[in-house]
């Protein structure tokens, strides 16, 4: 009788500890994911801030390539507002557009020689790889979170605690080719 109660208490305690453990690990994954997301946001903001400088620097030289510059400026606004998908899409557009701006710059020796332009180019490509790394880290984290939420027995508790899956930071494959750069 007494031993039955003791065994009952022990089982109860073990179950309770298990639930606490699952809850805490879900919270940890969730925090890690939102922290990873803010890392992306920081870099997107940096890119957002750098673009006007670039546009101002190259504007004087690239009279004939207005289209690219407008493309960048337009995409820039959606970098800081809108859904995650919209941000991802804008980010890809900018990456493509910047690529063509830097390619075009090869034709302007004066621009290429400008110290200001050189620094901007290094900063922007640095930011681009930081965004790529931040996205990689974020997507890994989200994968761990989603995996935990979907697998048994965590899925039962995840539903109970209302843990949500998060979406990956990437544009759909079809949208990536969307950028048309015309000269």
């Amino acid at each position: 009788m007494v031993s039955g109660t003791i065994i009952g208490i022990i089982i109860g305690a073990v179950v309770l500890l298990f639930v606490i453990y699952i809850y805490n690990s879900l919270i940890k994954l969730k925090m890690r994911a939102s922290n990873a997301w803010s890392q992306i946001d920081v870099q997107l903001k940096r890119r957002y801030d750098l673009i006007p400088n670039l546009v101002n620097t190259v504007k004087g030289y690239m009279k004939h390539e207005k289209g690219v510059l407008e493309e960048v400026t337009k995409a820039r606004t959606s970098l800081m507002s809108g859904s995650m998908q919209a941000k991802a899409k804008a980010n890809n557009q900018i990456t493509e557009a910047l690529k063509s701006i830097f390619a075009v710059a090869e034709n302007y020796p004066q621009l290429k020689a400008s110290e200001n332009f050189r620094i901007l180019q290094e900063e922007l490509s640095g930011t681009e790889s930081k965004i790529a790394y931040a996205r990689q880290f974020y997507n890994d984290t989200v994968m761990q979170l989603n995996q935990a939420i979907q697998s048994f027995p965590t899925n039962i508790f995840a539903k109970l605690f209302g843990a949500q899956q998060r979406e990956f930071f990437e544009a759909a494959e079809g949208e990536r080719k969307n950028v048309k750069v015309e000269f």
Partner: protein
Amino acid sequence: MGLYEEIAGNKRRTFLLLFFFFGLVVFLGLVIGLMYGNQYFGLGLALVIGVVYFLISYFAGSSMILSMTGAREATKPEYTHLINTVEGLAVAAGLPKPPKVYVIDDSALNAFATGRDPEHATITVTTGLLQKMNRLELEGVIAHEMSHIKNFDIRVMMLAAVLVGLTVLLSDFLLRSFLWGGKRDREQNQLGVVLIIVGIALAILAPLIGELIKLSVSRKREFLADASGALLTRYPKGLADALRKIKHDPDPLVDKANKATAHLFISMPFRHDGKTSLMQNLFSTHPPIEERIKRLEGM
């Protein structure tokens, strides 16, 4: 993705290492005390020296290492690319803040990371490395160092160095006391005599054991840092190419490196003559470069 488990394991091993050496230090102190007829004196001495030694290296260790190797802080715009690479990989590793970047003016190809935790970490590369590596290879090397930081290897290695140093110091002290004096024999009881004999045996062996433990920890860390570095760049070939360049570099010698800092570098900063003997393997701070390249290319 067993990386988080690896980090947890690393912290556990650090604790075990710390605990083991702490026991050793206390025991050596006790024996020193027994020799002078008052075990509390020896114990107190060992503890005070231990705590002071530990605090100094914990808080000033990395700046001592940096000045020992003659490193200077890398600044923009001269090293913009290097700093950007470090910051990018810090983001990839999910570090709370990017480590500080230093350079050593040396034509050799080498790099190391140090610090007590990811928030107080530094990455140092030689200027030779910056000149001779392409972008992908540099990323590989930095990712390797970033992994040392993220996996808390920098702390393990720093503590290992400190504790081995302390053990050597105390063992030396004990052996000297045994040879030159202390109140011994006559008033000692049997337990004391046994303890002293064991202590002396330990004092002879401890520095060697400590060194071997430190080395085996260091070698395991290198493989793990290669692997998790490759996980950061998603491009193992970058680091493999970098290691190959380092291997074929005619001047593998960092002038400022010595035995105390050797285990920190990405590759052994001493001249390698190609062949490795058992003795060399046993006392090497790094696994052979060919082995590391092979593992990276097998990923």
